[in-house]
């Protein structure tokens, strides 16, 4: 029985497209043979490749592995069916299943065609197939589905009931249940104009701010979104939520997908950043937070290894999320299954080596800069009015050459990076300036963050350099500022200095002084220096030296010239005139972001080991993306990389996203392995349909348009009850003859309870709500206080995502661990879920709130029950259900007050399967 079904299914798939059968063969060869006979040359056995036609048909001593049309003489067949287990392939593994052998046999018999893997081919715009039942076609996409069903003589399922469809589309688009008002409005509308009613509803939903929350959450699964680093102390990832809100906004504003992709990879480099209308903030930059949700350990003994692991995670997420490529498999060896070489992996790593993480300083509406420019001008005038420019030139003292001068800012320093508003331009020697109401003369070239206003904030970063001394010396002065050395991109010493004790120094001395940092442990490592002024203080930097001991170097510019005589009272009065302007200077908005550093090419780490460096891998995109990338003369080149992903030549990006949208709406992708389009992924069930959707999607890159056409299609509107005959022939629904039932996501289950109870706070965006801590949530890094049990009624999206303290109710219902891209959630069905629904205090609390509200809103029991069913299931109760519920709430054996019985009813409804399943 089961064998029959498997064979039938193979037959169906084989019949679908040219990709179909060969794709199955390719998956089989990939999973069973490529590890030793695939693209990776280093592990290849017998010098045989089975991933290319040349290899398959190559001449061996005993013949060819594949002889088209002649399975009996094909060595491949002989070896996989051999009786001697020492000769039989795959080696040291169980033999292939009978169906698998048959698959290969049939493929060879039929000529062993070996076209390019479907995913690497350009996106085709296939003709819409002709179907018999044209009435069934609501959108051209339906024709692709129906054509395959008709060719197998399968009948699609009937259309779902309008209210069923309504609940389905409402959850799929917003993640929330339809309110009774929406249900009633839709039903009335549907009576008059069914088609129009559906369209109007979908348009309303697409315009809802909750659309971005639902689709944003899907996206966060891809980018391992988290607000802490996990590991021992679960240190924070500051400003992470700004990225979350950026994602929600992008989906709500229907930012075109190509732009959405570009901004995550290189939103810092786009020529005309988008501005957020409400806040006046650069709305392209926050997308780059994408790169930085990796986990992190606080005191890596091998910091370069730590960096390599971090970059692997970044590239893993980058590859899977946008292109469905498992790029990080090529970190230690060429990819075993797909044509991605190790040097291509390191070529991508070079983009990240050339970039840096930062907490950017965003200027709302450009108001900070505008105000600072006014202040600059005022200050210049004040200086001019009180200083005569003829004071004596300061003399540089000769320096004894015991240290290496790294930077003096005298005639150099153009390659430094200024971020934010405070570091505007370096001071020249002898330049007069005002700081804290006092006149000063710069003795030599220097940077100063307090020239414009002590309230201005910003950071100054050095070019990358290789540490060649035991000590770094800084000649600085300032208050409330910091000096950091960032080694191999490591930043977690922010929270725990272990092993990096000297890398972070607080500056609180307003006279020039010497700050020494011992970095000898990290000789040979790549580092950069960061001076930051993140508040009302300032910092001035004159010189940086390197040496092999801690003693103070002989500075070049040792003494500041005397301040010329001036009228202090006049100065005071003049400064008074700008005090108000200064006091009202806004603080910048800090955002987790990326920025370009010094361009660096990454060397290949042989066998993934950074201690065995190999040749340089010049930056560029993997050839399999089919969209070569120009690397600019300066800068990281991330923008060009991003553009190559969405270029017309790239066959992956549009397909991958179109497939993701289909996956979320239909419950399974046309390519089931949504994050892997390579040889080890699943073959598409409907390649033509995928290409049709990708073609439409790519024409305007509108996610909302794509969602709209799918949810308004007849395919989407099919019932979750399959036609029995179709189910028998195609039990796995590979041909899409019905739209299977889905369980609600973890977030939707919780949000639905809040919606039912009336507790739901529909506020969109903002800082996360502290996580509620149960007694079972223990461990280091546990927050000192627990958040509210009901998360203040906010949607689950806004609950704090602390890696070591994830919300148990949500993880029980398969919210993924934020480790890497998780485009397809588990769909588990376990007793712990029932236990949570039965005994979680949150669930009880919401049931009680629901009862309290219903008792106030309605006087009559029948009306109460009616409303509760509408709110829970999107439909009124049946007569039988009404009777059951009535009997339940009026059960005289149940003592206790009225509201308890109604809360019990609410709690029972939460526990029904219908509450958490979507037909």
């Amino acid at each position: 029985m089961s064998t029959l079904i498997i064979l039938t299914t193979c037959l169906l798939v084989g019949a679908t497209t040219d990709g179909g059968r060969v794709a199955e063969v390719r998956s089989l060869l990939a999973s069973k043979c490529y590890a030793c006979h695939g693209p990776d040359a280093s592990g290849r056995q017998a010098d045989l490749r089975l991933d290319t036609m040349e290899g398959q048909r190559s001449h061996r001593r005993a013949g060819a592995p594949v002889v088209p049309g002649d399975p009996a003489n094909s060595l491949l067949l002989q070896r996989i069916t051999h009786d001697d287990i020492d000769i039989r392939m795959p080696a040291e593994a169980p033999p292939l299943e009978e169906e698998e052998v048959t698959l290969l046999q049939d493929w060879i018999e039929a000529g062993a065609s070996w076209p390019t893997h479907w995913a690497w081919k350009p996106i085709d715009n296939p003709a819409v197939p002709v179907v018999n039942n044209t009435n069934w076609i609501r959108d051209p996409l339906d024709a692709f589905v129906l054509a395959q069903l008709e060719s197998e003589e399968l009948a699609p399922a009937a259309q779902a009931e309008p209210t069923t469809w309504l609940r389905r589309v409402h959850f799929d688009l917003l993640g929330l249940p339809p309110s009774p008002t929406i249900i009633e409005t839709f039903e009335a509308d549907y009576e008059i104009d069914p088609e129009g009613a559906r369209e109007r509803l979908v348009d309303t939903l697409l315009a809802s701010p909750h659309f971005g929350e639902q689709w944003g959450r899907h996206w966060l699964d891809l980018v391992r979104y988290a607000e802490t680093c996990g590991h021992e102390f679960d240190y924070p990832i500051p400003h992470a939520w700004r990225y979350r809100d950026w994602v929600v906004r992008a989906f709500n504003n229907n930012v075109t997908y190509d732009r959405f992709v570009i901004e995550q990879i290189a939103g810092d480099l786009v020529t005309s950043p988008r501005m957020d209308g409400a806040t006046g903030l650069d709305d392209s930059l926050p997308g780059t937070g994408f790169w930085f949700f990796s986990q992190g350990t606080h005191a890596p003994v091998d910091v370069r290894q730590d960096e390599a692991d971090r970059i692997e995670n970044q590239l893993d997420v980058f590859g899977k999320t946008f292109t469905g490529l498992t790029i990080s498999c090529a970190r230690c060896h060429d990819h075993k299954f797909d044509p991605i070489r190790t040097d291509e992996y390191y070529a991508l790593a070079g983009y990240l080596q050339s970039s840096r993480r930062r907490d950017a300083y965003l200027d709302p509406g450009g108001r900070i800069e505008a105000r600072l420019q006014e202040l600059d001008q005022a200050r210049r005038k004040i200086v001019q009015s009180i200083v005569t420019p003829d004071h004596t030139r300061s003399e540089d003292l000769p320096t004894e050459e015991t240290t290496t001068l790294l930077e003096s800012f005298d005639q150099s320093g153009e390659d430094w990076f200024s971020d934010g508003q405070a570091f505007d331009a370096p001071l020249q020697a002898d330049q007069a300036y005002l700081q804290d109401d006092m006149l000063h003369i710069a003795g030599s070239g220097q940077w100063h963050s307090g020239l414009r206003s002590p309230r201005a904030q910003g950071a100054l970063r050095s070019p990358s350099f290789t540490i060649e001394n035991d000590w770094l010396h800084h000649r600085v002065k300032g208050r409330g500022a910091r000096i950091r050395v960032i080694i191999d991109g490591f930043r977690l010493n922010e929270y725990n200095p272990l092993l990096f004790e000297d890398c972070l120094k607080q500056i609180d001395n307003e006279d020039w002084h010497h700050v020494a940092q011992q970095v000898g442990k990290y000789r040979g490592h790549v580092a950069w220096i960061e001076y930051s002024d993140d508040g009302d203080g300032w910092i001035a930097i004159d010189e940086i030296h390197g040496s092999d001991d801690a003693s103070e170097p002989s500075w070049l510019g040792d003494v500041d010239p005397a301040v010329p005589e001036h009228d202090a009272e006049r100065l005071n009065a003049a400064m008074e005139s700008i005090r108000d302007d200064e006091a009202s200077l806004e603080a910048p908005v800090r955002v987790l972001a990326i920025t370009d550093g010094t361009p660096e090419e990454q060397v290949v780490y042989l066998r993934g080991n950074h201690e065995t460096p190999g040749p340089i891998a010049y930056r560029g995109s993997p050839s399999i993306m089919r969209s070569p990338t120009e690397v600019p003369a300066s800068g990281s080149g991330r923008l060009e990389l991003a553009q190559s992903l969405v270029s017309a030549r790239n066959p992956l990006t549009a397909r991958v996203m179109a497939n993701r949208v289909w996956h979320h709406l239909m419950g399974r992708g046309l390519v089931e392995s949504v994050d892997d389009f390579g040889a080890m992924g699943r073959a598409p069930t409907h390649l033509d349909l995928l290409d049709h959707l990708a073609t439409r999607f790519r024409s305007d890159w509108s996610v909302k348009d794509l969602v709209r056409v799918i949810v308004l299609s007849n395919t989407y509107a099919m019932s979750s009850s399959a036609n029995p005959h179709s189910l028998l022939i195609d039990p796995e629904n590979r041909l899409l003859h019905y739209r299977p039932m889905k369980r609600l996501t973890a977030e939707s289950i919780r949000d639905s309870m809040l919606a039912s109870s009336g507790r739901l706070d529909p506020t969109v965006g903002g800082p996360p709500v502290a996580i509620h801590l149960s007694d079972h949530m223990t461990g280091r890094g546990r927050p000192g206080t627990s958040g509210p049990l009901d998360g203040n009624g906010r949607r689950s999206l806004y609950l704090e995502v602390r890696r070591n303290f994830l919300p148990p109710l949500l993880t029980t219902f398969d919210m993924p661990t934020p480790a890497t891209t998780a485009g397809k959630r588990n769909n588990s069905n376990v007793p712990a879920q029932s236990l949570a629904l039965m005994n979680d205090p949150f669930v009880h609390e919401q049931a009680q709130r629901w009862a309290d509200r219903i008792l106030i809103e309605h006087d009559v029991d029948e009306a109460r029950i009616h409303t509760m069913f509408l709110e829970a299931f999107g439909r009124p109760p049946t007569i039988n259900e009404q009777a059951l519920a009535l009997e339940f709430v009026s059960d005289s054996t149940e003592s206790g007050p009225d509201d308890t019985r109604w809360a019990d009813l609410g709690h029972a409804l939460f526990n029904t399967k219908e509450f958490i399943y979507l037909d």
Partner: protein
Amino acid sequence: MHPCGRHLPPPISRREMLTRSAGGFGAVAMAGLFGDALGAGHLPNGVATLPHHVPRARSVIFLYMDGGPAQMDTFDPKPQLTRLHGQAFPMEIEATQFDNNGLTLQSPWQFSRHGECGHPVSDLFPHVATCADELCVIRSMTSKFSEHTNANYFLHTGLGLAGRPTMGAWASYGLGSETRDLPGFVVLNGGLTPPGGLDCFGSGFLPATHQGSILKPDGYGMAHVNPMETDGASQQRKLSLVERLDAGRATRNDAIESAIANQEMAFRMQWAVPELMGIDGESTLTRQLYGLDADYEPTKIFARQCLLARRLVERGVRFIELTCPAVDGDRWDQHDNLKVGHQNNARAVDQPIAGLLKDLKSRGLLDETLVVWAGEFGRTPFAQGSDGRDHNPFGYTIWMAGGGVRGGMVYGATDEYGYKAVENPLEIHDLHATMLHLMGLDHTRLTINVGGREMRLTDVHGNVIHDLVS
């Protein structure tokens, strides 16, 4: 029926279950056993034919020694350290976690030989020493990480980062549970959650049913097993309404049927867990054996954990992990004050572990229960500062007992200072491969397809160490 799961009718075979499943509704009753393997409408690869061979161990008790006990202070005596005590350490020193390396540091404890096999055991473990002949001591374990969290993830999941399924989850995934009322993988949390957090017990990309259920050794034990209703009738009344509403549902499929079965199991768990936790019926002798009434509070906690571990084994739970109780001072992580810190940690676990081994043996359960004692790494033979030891992943000691391993043997060796493994060095992957082997599972064939790739606990590594198998 006896509450001991072993006396239940033997679990239905997977092949039989598949047949029933294909035939219609039959599979539903087994949903609790196999989690969403059915609920999701498909069986993960490989699982249908498990176990791969006759198992030696039906259950595993993993005694996780949080922080990393020092090998040269427990089961791997190094007289050379005593000779060189206070002198510069003679070998080249690898990078350490605290980079505060001092002089050669002898063990503050004496070793003596125990049992017929003559295992040397330090004075830290007077009780465990009496079980010497059960212990298969591995002195050549290595890790790849010097940081707690990476090493913990590595020890538990085979990868040094969070997100992969832990060994208990793999065992549960591969073999299910033999009880219908309790989960297949239970973590008895004595109080110290390992650095790295509960992720050490996660199911990663395996279905959520396989994640470790955290059981505290006191109170109600598990989250959500205590009904919030003030009287039992009230919950039953609700659930009976739920049952009737569910029964009226138009669409019925495997997922719905599984969810209904889960609700029934959840209902039973509300009784099974308190029944498990109710140790009042244990004899005075048993209480004394484990040290349930010891003077030292952490000993009492760990004693309770060990006793509950035995009760879980009796009920057919597949994999049980114990975390350490908090003692005065830190976990086994003595960066300073080694003597007091190790003394306290040993005092907390010594008698309970010995009690567990003896109790299992006397009940005939030790033969089929694999007990593993391991930290995430060992400690350095040179001091950190003056009187501590830093992390050392280059060679350290773990031991196994029962469940098909050869008691009374020593495997592998470190150098004369106990710094690095020099004879038969093992990797964590080998430990995993061997543990799975003892459970009847071939680590190369226990896989799940994730995004196109067949993932396994041992990744592409690991060898079964047959020398350890009796």
